[in-house]
């Protein structure tokens, strides 16, 4: 006690630095990634200043671009949770795309016999089906890890490829609507089973559910004994075992929960955006979600701003293609560079001189 109080002031300063570290390092990494990307633009003979100007304009410059950005943020929030929740257990799950695709497909398939049912019954059923399928899909990666020792990063990625193939098979075969000619799809949702826009906005309800999911995830991890148990297991699985914590159940539970979030993203993509399940579900949200989760250090609340930022990059991509004559893949180059910077910044924790405790 005496020791704690005697060093109270030093402890306070250190505590402030420690709180700053997980914010400052990802921000520095993001800036470093953007700087490298600027060099890449220069090699293409394009102006980085013009580029970032268009990003601003296309993402946040007007009410219209804000709506565009926020629409894209909705699935990204949920996709990021699919990475962030298992990550607190020390698992790197990168196959959220698969759960989004299958979740969307499940929502589209369940909607078929529900055509006449009121929205208050039909939509929850569709969402539940999507979440269930997503939970099983990512839960499988968790189960493979727990029971068979299979690396969850690899298995979840491979499961995503299987999911996409499965979706393509079903929408081109058994579930295909004969009237979808150019783009094989399931039958369009009945009008009553569409998710509408938020009042006064051009953004669908998925955004609200995404925000709620992020807050709930944060509360679960930071404020409940389940989350605490998961953090112990993620911090040191041997210690968790000695404490008698149910590591296996935690792994299955958190991977399934992450998968359910991604499945819900798929539901909104179908019910609010596309109106039917088709190949557009594999739009890469699952992969952008990985980047967001890592940038946010797997913290549910930090996912909110980061997802909006990344959605903004995405939203401005059309404008940049038109104005700067840059290909579609430019944004993927940017994302890739930022992701590398984030991964490398992990080595900086505890090493940056101004965060070092004075010994």
């Amino acid at each position, binding site marked *: *006690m*005496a*020791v*704690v109080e005697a*060093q109270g002031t*030093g*402890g306070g300063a*250190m*505590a402030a630095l*420690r709180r700053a570290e997980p914010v400052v390092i990802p921000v520095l990494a993001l800036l470093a990634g953007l700087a490298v990307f600027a060099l890449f633009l220069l090699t293409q003979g394009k102006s980085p200043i013009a580029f970032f100007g268009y990003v601003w304009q296309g993402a946040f410059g007007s009410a219209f671009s804000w709506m565009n950005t926020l629409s894209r943020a909705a699935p990204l929030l949920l996709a990021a949770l699919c990475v962030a929740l298992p990550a607190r257990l020390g698992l790197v799950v990168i196959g959220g795309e698969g759960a989004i695709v299958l979740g969307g497909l499940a929502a589209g398939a369940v909607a078929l016999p529900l055509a006449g049912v009121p929205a208050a019954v039909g939509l929850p059923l569709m969402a539940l089906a999507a979440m269930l399928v997503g939970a099983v899909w990512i839960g499988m990666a968790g189960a493979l890890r727990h029971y068979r020792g299979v690396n969850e990063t690899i298995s979840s990625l491979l499961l995503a490829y299987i999911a996409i193939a499965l979706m393509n098979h079903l929408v081109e075969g058994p579930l295909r609507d004969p009237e979808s000619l150019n783009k094989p799809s399931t039958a369009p949702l009945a009008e009553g089973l569409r998710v509408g826009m938020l009042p006064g906005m051009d953004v669908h309800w998925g955004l609200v559910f995404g925000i709620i999911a992020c807050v709930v995830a944060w509360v679960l991890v*930071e*404020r*409940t*004994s*389940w*989350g*605490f*148990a998961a*953090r*112990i297991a*993620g*911090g*040191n699985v*041997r*210690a*968790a*075992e*000695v*404490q*008698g*914590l*149910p590591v296996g159940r935690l792994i299955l539970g958190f991977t399934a929960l992450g998968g359910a979030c991604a499945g819900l993203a798929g539901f909104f993509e179908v019910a609010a955006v596309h109106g039917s399940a088709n190949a557009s579900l594999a739009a890469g949200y699952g992969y952008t979600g990985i980047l967001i989760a890592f940038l946010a250090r797997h913290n549910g609340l930090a996912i909110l701003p980061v997802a909006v930022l990344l959605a903004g990059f995405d939203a401005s991509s059309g404008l940049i293609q038109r104005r700067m004559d840059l290909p579609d893949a430019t944004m993927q180059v940017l994302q890739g560079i930022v992701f590398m910077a984030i991964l490398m910044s992990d080595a900086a924790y505890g090493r940056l001189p101004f965060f070092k*405790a004075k010994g």
Partner: protein
Amino acid sequence: MRPPVTAIGADPLPPGALEVETVGMTMRFGSFTALEDVSIRVAPGTFHALLGENGAGKSTLVKCIMGFYHATAGQLMVGRREAEIADPRDARALGMGMVYQHFTLVPSLTVAENLVISRADAPVVIDWAKERAGLEAFMAAMPFRVPLDQPVARLAAGEKQKLEILKQLYLGSRFLILDEPTSVLTPDEADEVLGHVRGLCEAGEISVLMITHKFREVTAFADEVSVLRRGRLVGQGHVADLSHAQMAAMMIGAEKEQRPVARSGLRGAPMLELRGVKAADRSGLKEIAVESLTVHAGEIVGIAGISGNGQMELMEVLTGQRAARGGEIRVQGVPYGATRAEAQSHAVRYLPEEPLRNACAPRMSVIENIAFRSFDRNGAGRRFWLSANEMRAAARDLIGAFKVKVADPDGPIAALSGGNVQRAVLARELTGEVKLLVISNPCFGLDFAAVSEIRARIVAARNAGAAVLLMSEDLDEVLELSDRVLVMSEGRITYEVPAAEAKIAEIGHYMGGHAA
């Protein structure tokens, strides 16, 4: 390649076996002295054994010789010349090589490929015909051989260890350090490998310094033996003049018999009972089997034994980290599966060895780590919502009560010193009712002050009526704390004696794997 670093002149060292001598070698890590004033001479062409318990300083000594560490004080003489070894490459250039406990071969490559890539001067483009001829000539000159075309993965363990030694000879080593070279070998393989090493020594090709725990190998193969204990050289001599009992006595310190510390209370009802418990050991090849073990309330049962004889596996079975293959574990007469609910209802607490590795989440805060036992408890009931305030208040009390030196309780526990990490874990595990305490090497690597304090806490828990099972590689600790002493050897409990009647020499015999 850099020239070999020798202090005097450029004369090459004489051919054949090297003489290596440490003079007053001392190594300190901060305030901890790992090695103090150790002088050992390995004469050319001799086989020198280095004995000592875990933490006695054996590895530190050989790491100083090989240039992994830089000794705080003292000198290294190679071939009677002072040698300045800045890093392992210098040691290699002087003709010193090391064979590790675990293999350093590439399993998918053949023997020939492994040998060639181990050379520091391996060419970028390898002329295999030429290398092949060279290797065949080299093998032909050796007293023992390994087939050049076999992938290493297909070799038996004994063959791999032979290859490790051949590799050192191929690299031109004339002084070999063997670090427990037979721990992964069967006794027959061990005898064969060490017999070849012995032959090379007698032929004047190499000198050898071997770290070992096995007295039998010392007697059968070594010329001389040095014994380290707590970083000091406590005995030295010709193997021919020493009995196993004398070596054991040096190794575990017969100079003062540790007497149990003051204690009170009487032995109560059986708390922990093991009957016929079997489990795979960490290699998966052997088995640990505990026929019968009972710990009563109010007693400390100490399990002595040399590292690697199944204590770690037994601890893992008791903590639920390793599945038992059979048998029964009962706590308070009820079958026990080490779940959190069971540990909670029987008040079972654990103190595993290396607390940062086995009992803490290093990046979580000190406060959070102290809460590991209680975060989901609310009095007698369970809690779903965490209470940050209660956690903080409880941690503050415990930090004070157990004198944990913490600059920043919200900072990661990995920032604390080893002694303070162990104090924090003790604070967590000894709070509340404790009926059974299972401990493994609680004081490993800690400084003197922390050691005496932690031992006093363990005895206090016993005096308060807890049953304590203490596994320790430090025999002094076992004798000081225990009411009953058991010896574990090769996965089995081989000896039991009340602490009051314990004889160090007798215990030493059983620890060395010798049923009297």
